[in-house]
């Protein structure tokens, strides 16, 4: 009854929402009509679905009944075995103490069974009737009412039959067990061997552990200092405590320092760059927020994108790379000095680039290629220095093989230098050449630099955090070569239907579909590595970041493929859908993964952990913010594309975006807030003096003056 009620509520809910739709869509009567059509279709579909479920249930009952009615006593020995193992201690003692009392068996239930099967056969025509109905249904309301009227009593009849059958089954079951017990008793009386078996079985079931087999009453002592993360709870908690990071490694202090410099400057660029982004989002809602040339939308937009690209993501990746590359090579980094040079070069590129962009000096419009060449040369130089450093580090590795992380990382470094060169060398940039190169440049910068580098990092950090080996090395290798093959081809899918050669557009689409291979391989690899470890997620404050990153790696990349087809590009190209996509990937994948790595690594470098509730706040603000940001933009972008297709005046497509841009600003604000929290967490993990540090200082001050004399 409760289910029925629920169903009715759901149905009325659906109808009322459809009515609401019809009201809001007042001027287009067509869509209202279509929605009511959809709703009636849904209602009918669910009716038929329930009918089928009922029939399935009925079928299951009749099968059960047939099984119950079978004569089981054909194989005497097997039957005895079954009985023996089915009885528990209590039953056994009942049997053993029971005085034999024979009862005559009644005949079997063949008659009733036949009747039931006949009844279930009767319901079969009902099924046959429901099949052809859907075609007729949608056509006229009269038909719908008629079919509903027929269907309702039929459903009730089937349900009632089912209830009857299950009652019958229970009765038969009861009688069978009664008979079996009687048989058991007679056999036990007549057959001493079986009686003996029963006794043995009883003895083995009566066995009990003394609870002292494994140890003694001595309280355990942690003699080797191996126990960590002992959580004692004596009151209900609002926030669950997560595992603490393990004790810091004995690392080269100089390396720790340089890695922290990278991560801290990356954090600074993140906060700055997303503040700019947040302001840009506000400008969509309030275009007259300021009339200052340096802060106008067209100038700030590339400031935002380039700052989070080259400032935040790239510096964070390089810094993490300085930890991972020597570690998986089982050696120390080639040169710390070079690492600082690279840091200075990249930082000055971002600083100089942002200032020149705001001053109105840019390279001429291509996305992510807005820095003029002297600025980009600084960046390229910084990357080259680090590439050389990594390469020499790997060259003196003490392992035979090169761990897969180092494939991805070094490849990403080499490729980004090639990409920057191709993007900035003027020999092939005239006319449409610029656009062809732009397609290549902007997409390679994303996929061959950020994605490839991050994949390299996750191949180290994910197994490390889960304390389990990577699922498959081969999948990693497959993904590596497939990524190079397909990703390189797909750049021009940003210029479908433009005047670049048609064949090049087609190659890009084929490449985009080919990306399914590395994405599936990578996702499978990460999820299978996590398999069996999912319980660890709830006990960890870093693993949720990994999980979100992996999920967005799959969905974001799939979305990219979906957008690349000509038919979908028709709707989504040039709209805010692409903005949503770029945030799902650069934020959902790259930023979330980088945070995962940073929260994993920094406490191990400094021995200082962030407040777990602060990490939680960061995670949820960022995730919810991202969803608030992207989902409305995807919906709005789709509607915008459809408005263009239907030939509506352009300004209509601007007006319709207003609520979605507001949502974007709200989501963006949450994301921005999460970065402030992250910034605080970075401070806690690095500069903030922890209690341990103060204690250490006090202890050090004690010095040797207070040698406690041994009382023994």
């Amino acid at each position, binding site marked *: 009854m409760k289910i029925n009620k629920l169903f009715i509520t759901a149905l009325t809910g659906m109808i009322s929402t459809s009515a609401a739709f019809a009201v809001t869509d007042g001027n287009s009567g067509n869509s209202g009509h279509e929605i009511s059509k959809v709703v009636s279709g849904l209602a009918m579909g669910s009716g038929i679905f329930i009918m089928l479920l009922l029939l399935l249930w009925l079928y299951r009952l009749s099968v059960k009944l047939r099984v119950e009615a079978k004569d089981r006593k054909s194989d005497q020995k097997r039957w005895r075995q079954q009985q023996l193992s089915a009885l528990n201690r209590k039953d056994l003692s009942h049997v053993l103490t029971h005085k034999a009392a024979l009862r005559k068996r009644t005949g079997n239930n063949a008659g009733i069974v036949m009747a039931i099967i006949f009844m279930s056969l009767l319901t079969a025509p009902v099924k046959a009737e429901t099949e052809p109905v859907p075609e007729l249904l949608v056509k006229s309301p009269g038909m719908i009412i008629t079919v509903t009227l027929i269907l309702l009593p039929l459903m009730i009849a089937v349900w009632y039959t089912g209830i009857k059958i299950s009652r019958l089954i229970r009765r038969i079951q009861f009688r069978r067990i009664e008979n079996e017990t009687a048989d058991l008793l007679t056999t036990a009386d007549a057959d001493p061997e079986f009686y003996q078996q029963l006794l043995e079985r009883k003895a083995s079931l009566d066995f009990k552990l003394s609870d002292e087999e494994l140890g003694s009453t001595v309280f355990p002592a942690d003699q080797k200092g191996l126990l960590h993360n002992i959580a004692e709870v004596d009151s209900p908690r609002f926030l669950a405590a997560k595992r603490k990071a393990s004790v810091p490694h004995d690392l080269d202090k100089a390396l720790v320092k340089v890695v922290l410099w990278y991560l801290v400057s990356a954090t600074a660029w993140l906060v700055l760059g997303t503040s700019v982004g947040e302001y840009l989002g506000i400008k969509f809602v309030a275009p007259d927020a300021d009339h200052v040339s340096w802060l106008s939308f067209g100038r700030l937009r590339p400031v935002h994108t380039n700052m989070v690209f080259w400032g935040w993501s790239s510096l964070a990746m390089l810094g993490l790379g300085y930890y991972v590359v020597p570690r998986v090579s089982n050696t120390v980094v080639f040169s710390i000095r070079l690492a600082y040079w690279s840091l200075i070069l990249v930082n000055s590129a971002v600083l100089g680039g942002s200032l020149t962009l705001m001053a109105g000096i840019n390279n001429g419009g291509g996305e992510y*290629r807005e820095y003029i060449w*002297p600025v980009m040369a600084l960046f390229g130089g910084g990357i080259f220095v680090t590439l050389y450093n990594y390469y020499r580090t790997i060259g003196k590795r003490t392992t035979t093989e090169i761990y897969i992380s180092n*494939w991805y990382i070094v490849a990403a470094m080499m490729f980004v230098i090639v990409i920057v060169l191709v993007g900035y060398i003027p020999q092939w*940039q005239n*006319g449409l050449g610029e656009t062809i190169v732009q397609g290549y440049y902007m997409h390679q910068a994303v996929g061959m630099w950020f994605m490839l580098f991050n994949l390299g990092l996750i191949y180290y950090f994910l197994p490390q955090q889960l304390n389990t080996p990577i699922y498959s090395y081969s999948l990693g290798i497959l993904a590596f070569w497939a990524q*190079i093959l397909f990703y390189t081809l797909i*750049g021009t899918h940003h210029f479908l239907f433009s005047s670049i050669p048609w064949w090049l557009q087609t190659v890009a689409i084929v490449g985009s579909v080919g990306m399914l291979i590395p994405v599936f391989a990578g996702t499978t690899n990460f999820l299978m590595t996590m398999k069996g470890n999912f319980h660890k997620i709830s006990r960890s404050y870093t693993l949720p970041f990994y999980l979100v990153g992996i999920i967005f790696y799959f969905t974001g990349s799939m979305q990219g493929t979906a957008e690349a087809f000509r038919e979908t590009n028709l709707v989504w190209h040039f709209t805010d859908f692409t903005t949503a996509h770029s945030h799902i990937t650069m934020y959902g994948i790259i930023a979330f993964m980088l945070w995962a790595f940073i929260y994993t690594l920094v406490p191990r470098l400094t021995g200082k952990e962030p407040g777990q509730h602060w990490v939680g706040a960061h995670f949820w603000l960022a995730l919810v913010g991202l969803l608030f940001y992207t989902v409305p933009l995807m919906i709005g972008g789709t509607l915008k594309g459809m408005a263009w297709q239907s*030939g509506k005046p352009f300004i209509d497509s601007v007006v319709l975006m207003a609520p979605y841009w507001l949502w974007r600003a709200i989501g963006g604000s949450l994301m921005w807030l999460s970065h402030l929290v992250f910034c605080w967490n970075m401070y806690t993990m690095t500069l903030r003096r922890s209690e341990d540090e103060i204690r250490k200082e006090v202890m050090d001050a004690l010095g040797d003056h207070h040698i406690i004399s041994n009382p023994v």
Partner: protein
Amino acid sequence: MDLYSNHKKLYMAALGFFLVLTLFVAIMPALSNQQMTAVLPGSRPLNNLEKEGKNIFIAEGCVACHTQQVRNLDMDKNWGSRPSIAADYAGITRTDIWRNTATLMGSERTGPDLTNVGNRQSSEDWHLLHLYNPRLVVSASVMPSYEWLFELKEYAYPEDKVLSIPGAGKEDRKVVASRQAMALVAYLQSLKQQKLPDGRAVPVFLYNEDAVKTSAATSSAKRETGLDGEALYASNCSSCHQPNGLGIPGAFPSLKGSNIVLDPDPLVQVTVIMKGYDGRAGEGYGAMPAVGTNNNLKPEEIAAIINHERSSWGNQSKQVTVEEVKMIISSLK
């Protein structure tokens, strides 16, 4: 395999693979495109003022929201009479030693495409007002204001271009367009899609749903009634004359109660739409461009626009037929 334990071999293999693909997918197509395409005959390079304007267009990052490419899609028909082709961009080369080529094709269309804006909206007054504050002329616009391209002066010199700001009092300071603003407008006015030379096949617009519809509906009358005069007005006229038909006092005349609109004989109205109009410059109104000709409006579309104007905002005048409009247009040629 040795490949996986020899870092030199591994990295050289990956780099080589990537370089080969890069050559195939980026460098070679770019080079061949550069060599194979020439500028269209009859196209003229930008003059100095327009070049200066283009540099401002680049510096302000206008490309973030405005594309300059007409795709070969039916939905892009509003932005040009034909799809853009490689030759349209062939004349664009490196801006200067610091800056790369700017084809400015763009990747997002938050604002309208500008390929053909010089034809679509050639009014200098409109552009200046729009740059000073877009919401003065298009109330729903989200474009930034480019106030810093204008100067405020107590007294304007005779050679100064003074903007007539709606609602501004006589005592208010004059808004004068700087040379930069004039240059930017000159660049925008220079953006005109070139006609293809005779004999050259015009690329078609794909995904044309209209063609399917017309072949299905045989009577042309049915199509005619399907045209939405209000939407066509919004696309072609309302940026100046405003959605409420009132125009902008001092800049663009009102159509509400306008003698030309209310005239039962549509001759003048059609002529103004097809040929442009400069009759009220004395009152401070800007010249109207030949919207009908520039935007390739069909007689059916013009009739729909005229009928919308004649029946909205309190206007009540005789509706026109397509035949009438056709006759007038052919007499104009």
